[in-house]
């Protein structure tokens, strides 16, 4: 499956939710599909998108938060799985696109290319629901069921190591940061109104 097709399939489930992505191809692809003020693209700090998502999920229990992670990033912060599993916020969905590659920095294979099983690690870390998806349709179904279940879920979606021609996004990172904070503030006000 191509990640861009996968993102397109689940975009209706993302557009009205808080989304935190890692940097690189996936950020550019989601941005191109349609930026929303509730989307935050973590342009560095590899591995910490899931920790940020956990912080947001704990701070805003009334909102659903979707983290879009990657195999390279998750391998840099495997402890995040045990920390998320420890607190099990039901409003957090952790989606990992596994292309078995550090695509944005030359396409070198990650350890998932040589047998490391991220779904297995997530399960063994205690994440209460772990799903795997290999087609856009199965991913869409997995995302829908995870969001409906209100159970912390990690979805591992294998994708091809193909990205967009350009990673350019016409959105300076600080603009994204302040816009995102304001959008979350508006959600909070809406929820308490």
């Amino acid at each position, binding site marked *: 499956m191509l990640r861009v097709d996968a993102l397109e399939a689940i975009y209706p489930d993302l557009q009205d939710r808080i989304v*935190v992505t890692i940097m690189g191809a996936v950020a550019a692809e989601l941005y191109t599909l349609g930026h929303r003020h509730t989307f*935050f693209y*973590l*342009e*560095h*700090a590899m*591995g*910490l*998108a*899931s*920790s*940020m*998502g*956990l*912080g*947001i*999920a*704990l*701070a*805003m229990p009334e909102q659903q938060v979707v983290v879009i992670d990657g195999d390279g990033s998750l391998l840099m*912060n495997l*402890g*995040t799985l*045990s*920390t998320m599993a*420890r*607190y099990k916020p039901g409003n957090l969905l952790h989606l990992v696109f596994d292309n078995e590659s550090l695509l944005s920095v030359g396409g070198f294979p990650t350890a998932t290319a040589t047998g490391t099983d991220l779904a297995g690690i997530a399960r063994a870390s205690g994440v209460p629901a772990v799903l795997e998806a290999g087609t856009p349709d199965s991913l869409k179904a997995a995302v829908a069921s995870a969001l409906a279940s209100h159970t912390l879920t990690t979805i591992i979606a294998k994708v091809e190591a193909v990205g967009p021609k350009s990673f350019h996004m016409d959105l300076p*990172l*600080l603009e994204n*940061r302040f816009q*995102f*904070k304001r959008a*979350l*503030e508006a959600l*909070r006000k809406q929820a308490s109104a």
Partner: protein
Amino acid sequence: MPVSVTNSRLIYDALKACDVKIISALPETWLVHLIRMADDDPDMTLVRLAKEEEGIGISAGAHLAGVNSALLMQNHGFLAAINPIVSLALLYKIPLLMLISYRGHMGEKDPWQTQGGLATEPILRALNIPIWHLTNPADVARRIKDAQTLANAALHPVAVLLSRELMWED
């Protein structure tokens, strides 16, 4: 264990007065009472980490979601979190209230703490992170409040160094 309960309570109360709602922590000897106080407080969300760098992400998320947070870490934990401090907190102008137990400084008997003690302040200075030393119980509430105020005004991390004089009774 001669960690000061009284002064830990002063620090905890100061964090509460700052409306801190989320504390991330990794256990270390000087922090035991603070972590227990956070755990026993039904109004506090305590996030026990696997590694300190996760705490930078959690505090960044909490800030963007409009909630005050603090980090409890040993100075070696601060050293473990340098990259996210640079490439998340400094890059994205995220205020962090870091309470750092200052191991390996004057009075340290454990040889294994001493290199971290020597490196802590020079590295904080290299990162341009303001430092407040907590040595005197009378300063605790004011200095923690002022540290948070500066962090929020500057959108920048601040370091509150918890000293042996404050934390350790012997």
